[in-house]
């Protein structure tokens, strides 16, 4: 019996030594240690041995042989697996710069991106965002903003008139300011609101002017709001939007809907001044048109162009480029 065990062990080890791969090792394992394996079969023969001693000796020998063979099989299998995995990994080698182009993400319009960045900065400064119609009545676009009929300042706006209702009663809004009035009429103060949107001017387009473009306007109405609050808000915005090295200043100006009125300029870290937009304290007539008592509340408003923000950010040399809808342009952003 012991001889048989040793023979089976030796045969198994010899065959293992000549095995060429993990599959051969697994097949050998089945032949030696499987249900009908050569060593497994011998286990059944133990019972037929005559003496306890013989059984003990043969049993021990069989255990030793089984353990030894199992260990050797496992070790060899491990070696083969590692080698075979190494081969497989190398076979799978790819050049990761060989990428066939597939349709990818879409691209948000650069003006939308500027619009959202501006909204986000103002939201961070405590503003909410309001919107209004692009086709407006003359009353909201002009009259309520302290520009009654024949007001000379109307000629500052090249207005598109819309053939709707009574002649001259309907316009494409020339600024986002009519939304100020709509906000005042619906929300009681305090009002901390920005109003982005599309606006229209009937003027010939060139590299820096469009007939259809976008503005963002701010309106604050509360008790005790001052011109200094306006200057401070513009300053806070300048730093939040452009960066810490930027500062701002107000210069006297004129708009019919604000008084005192100002232009605001920003100063780049290099020291250049750039004109950005207009602002001022909301004119008492405008507050009244919005249903607000100018003796109880005061406020300020400011506004500037969104398109220019996109143009400058991406160094686009002509604003008209942004509206070609050329995919070769849109995909750049």
């Amino acid at each position, binding site marked *: 019996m012991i001889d048989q065990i040793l023979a089976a062990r030796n045969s198994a080890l010899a065959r293992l030594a000549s095995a060429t791969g993990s599959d051969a090792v697994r097949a050998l394992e089945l032949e030696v240690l499987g249900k009908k394996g050569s060593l497994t079969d011998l286990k059944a023969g133990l019972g037929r041995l005559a003496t306890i001693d013989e059984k003990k000796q043969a049993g021990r020998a069989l255990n030793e042989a089984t353990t030894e063979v199992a260990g050797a099989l496992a070790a060899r299998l491990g070696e083969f697996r590692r080698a075979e995995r190494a081969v497989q990994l190398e076979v799978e080698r790819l050049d990761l710069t060989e990428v066939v182009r597939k349709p990818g993400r879409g691209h948000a319009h650069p003006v939308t991106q500027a619009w959202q960045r501006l909204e986000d900065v103002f939201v961070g400064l405590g503003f909410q965002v309001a919107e209004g119609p692009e086709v407006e009545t003359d009353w909201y676009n002009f009259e309520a903003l302290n520009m009654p009929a024949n007001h000379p300042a109307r000629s500052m706006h090249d207005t598109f008139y*819309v053939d709707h209702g009574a002649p001259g009663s309907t316009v494409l809004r020339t600024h986002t300011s009519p939304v100020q009035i709509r906000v005042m009429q619906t929300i009681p103060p305090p009002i901390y609101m920005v109003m982005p949107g599309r606006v229209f001017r009937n003027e010939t387009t060139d590299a820096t002017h469009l007939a259809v473009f976008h503005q963002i306007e701010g309106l604050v109405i509360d008790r005790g709001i001052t011109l200094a609050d306006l200057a401070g808000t513009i300053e806070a915005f300048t730093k939040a939007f452009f960066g810490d090295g930027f500062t701002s200043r107000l210069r006297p100006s004129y708009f019919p809907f604000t008084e005192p009125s100002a232009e605001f300029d920003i100063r780049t870290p290099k020291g250049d001044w750039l004109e950005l937009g207009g602002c001022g304290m909301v004119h008492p007539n405008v507050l009244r048109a919005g249903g607000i008592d100018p003796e109880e509340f005061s406020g300020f408003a400011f506004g500037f162009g969104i398109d220019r923000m996109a143009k400058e950010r991406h160094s686009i040399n002509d604003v008209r480029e942004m509206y070609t809808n050329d*995919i070769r342009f849109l995909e750049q952003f």
Partner: protein
Amino acid sequence: MRIVHSMLKDLVAIDDDFDAIADIITNVGLAVEDIHHVGGTVAGVITAKVLRTERHADAAKVHRVFVDAGDGIERHVWCGAFNMQPGDVIPLATPGTVMPDGRAIEPKPILGISSDGMLCSARELDMGDDHSGILILPADTPLGVPYGEALGLEKEVVYDIDVLRNRPDAYGHLGVARDVAAKLGISVTPAPVLPPSQAPVRSATVELVDGDRCPRFTSIVLSGVKVGPSPDWIARRLTASGMRPINNVVDVSNYVMLETNQPNHAYDFDTLGGGGFRVRLAREGETMISLDDSERTLTADDLLICDATDRPIGIAAIMGGQNTEISDTTTAIALESAWFEPAAIMRTVVRMGLRTEASARFERGMDTHGIERSTARFVELLRLTCPDLVVHEGAVDARAPQLPVPPVLRVRSARVGALLGTPFTAQQIRTLIEPIGFVCTEVGDDLDVQVPTWRPDCSGEVDLIEEVARLHGYDLLGKTVPKSTQPGGLSGVQQRRRRLRDVLLGLGLTEAMPHPFLTAGELEKAGLPAESVRLVNPLVVGDDMLRTSLRPGLLKAIAFNESHRRSGVALFEIGHVYPPSNDVLPAEYEALGIVIAGADAPAAVAVWRELAAAMGWGARLDQSNVPAGLHPARSATLSLGKDSIGVVGEVHPDVADAFDVSERLAVLELNLSVLLANEPKPAAWKPTSRFPSSDLDLAFMLPDSVTAEKLDKAIRQSTGNLLVDLTLFDVYRGTGLPEGTRSVAYRLRLQSLERTLADDDVAAVRAKVEAATKKMGAVLRG
């Protein structure tokens, strides 16, 4: 507005630090946009003598000029003008010179031979219009010196000022001078005094027929006039202001207007019919020939200056007539200065499309009492060339009761402080605004302020608060941030719109922004109804329809890209459309438009489903209701209740043809004003099972008349809560199937929350599905 430094200096004692003066002017609110140096010398341009000229065999349009700039060194310049001879003295712009037009001179080589600068024409040096050749200087001009110095040219410095609508006074140098003087704490030069009038009485009579339109009209007769050229300095300053010198009388008239802001008109007194003026409204259709040789047809709303015989001699406030023009033989003039009602002048200007230096001033509102100073100045200046000038007795100052009287305004110190954020006492306010002519009376802590006649813009307290801020200096008012208790944030609609945009971008769609106006026929071309709201005054003729759909714009964008060899372009737009309505405003709403080139209807439906799932939207897809302009067999209306909220499918091939697009076009349009309005219910959690799932694949033979959606619904209803997922994975039409049917294959994933499903459970589901789908004509296959 061009403000000439030397003219300003006549009115206020300033020094020649031009940048500092510009800063002062800017800081009081009259933004200096540019400083021009007119005339004088251009730095870097020196005199040089032509030594010889030489042609180059390979250069047809330029030749080589060798010059000496006084240092004995021969310099070589390429030149395109051939008018110089050896010995001529010419201006040489040396390398590094910046020419008046902004061009920098560089030693640019031609044919490999460099050029030591550029020879200049008169126009290039801003010395007039002559560009016919190089400017030849007098032969005795010294060499190597700035050419302007050599010619004794005097420079004028001009501030280009953006005059605001509320500062009509600042169209004159005097208005700017008042602000500058106040800022410097000095006074403007006192007004000249009209010399005593002399006998004999010579009057130009004035009859105000329509006095409400001309509440003040003055005339004065001057004789001893000798028409001739103006002194150089007047001509130079006029030129610097952008006006052309004509003769001493016209030049003084213009000069006085520029200086004092008061327009005036000098008529030849001897050609003035009846020796006087009559101011009346024109008769409808009346004509006259204005100074610019144009025949003007008038309306009954236009004001005329007529002579005493009622012959029109000028369009009031705008332009004089040809018939009383000053000529070389004029010896006596009638000088008119008046105040016209501004709004009416503006109407005439707009109607005639004729804006002049005078009308620009009158329509903004003039000083009602600026006439005295300007008349005295006129006489003072004309005397320089007409020493025998006589101011005749008999001057007329006709007035009507409509002449505005400036108000007295109450200014509350507390209000000034409350609006500006810095406290001001009545005394401080007074100190700031009195120097520019506001006369203050203290009333307790407040002030009663008499507005000067030249500031018609000031009609309320807040106007004066602005004056205080302006003269104090905006930069000294500090920067604070309001203490808001309001939380910032986007509204629900805005948040949902952002989410929608993110999903669209994730789906590979790129955002376009087509023009919101369409030209006639574009809606019809897109197969859409032609009704639209029109612009009254489009920028481009025909580009006048407000879009009622985003589709035409997107189709144009797709066509543009296809024509530039970019197929398969997938675009979306979120923007407003403006359908007509009978309401106060058009039925404007926000829409989403998507067009995907090279994709078919199912791609559009897939996008719709993705958006609906992401946004929590639901809508009924109704293929029986074919939207306008879309493929009749591959499109559907999306509805919520009775309202259509969009369309989905494929663009009609006729429409694609009309837009010159060769690809199939998947399309989706949604009304975002409706869809984004409501916050969708948050997704409710469904527990996931711990037990294994079983898949059941079922293929049905389905008549074409039954929609997949219907079958889908039947499967869901019959399987109940064991169905965790239902996927359509194959559709087949063709061989082996009866005509008018197709095979649709679904995978049902079944799972219980309580136990592992047995084969019997799956078989039971199969039986239920078979029974339920049979009723609609579906035959379970295999």
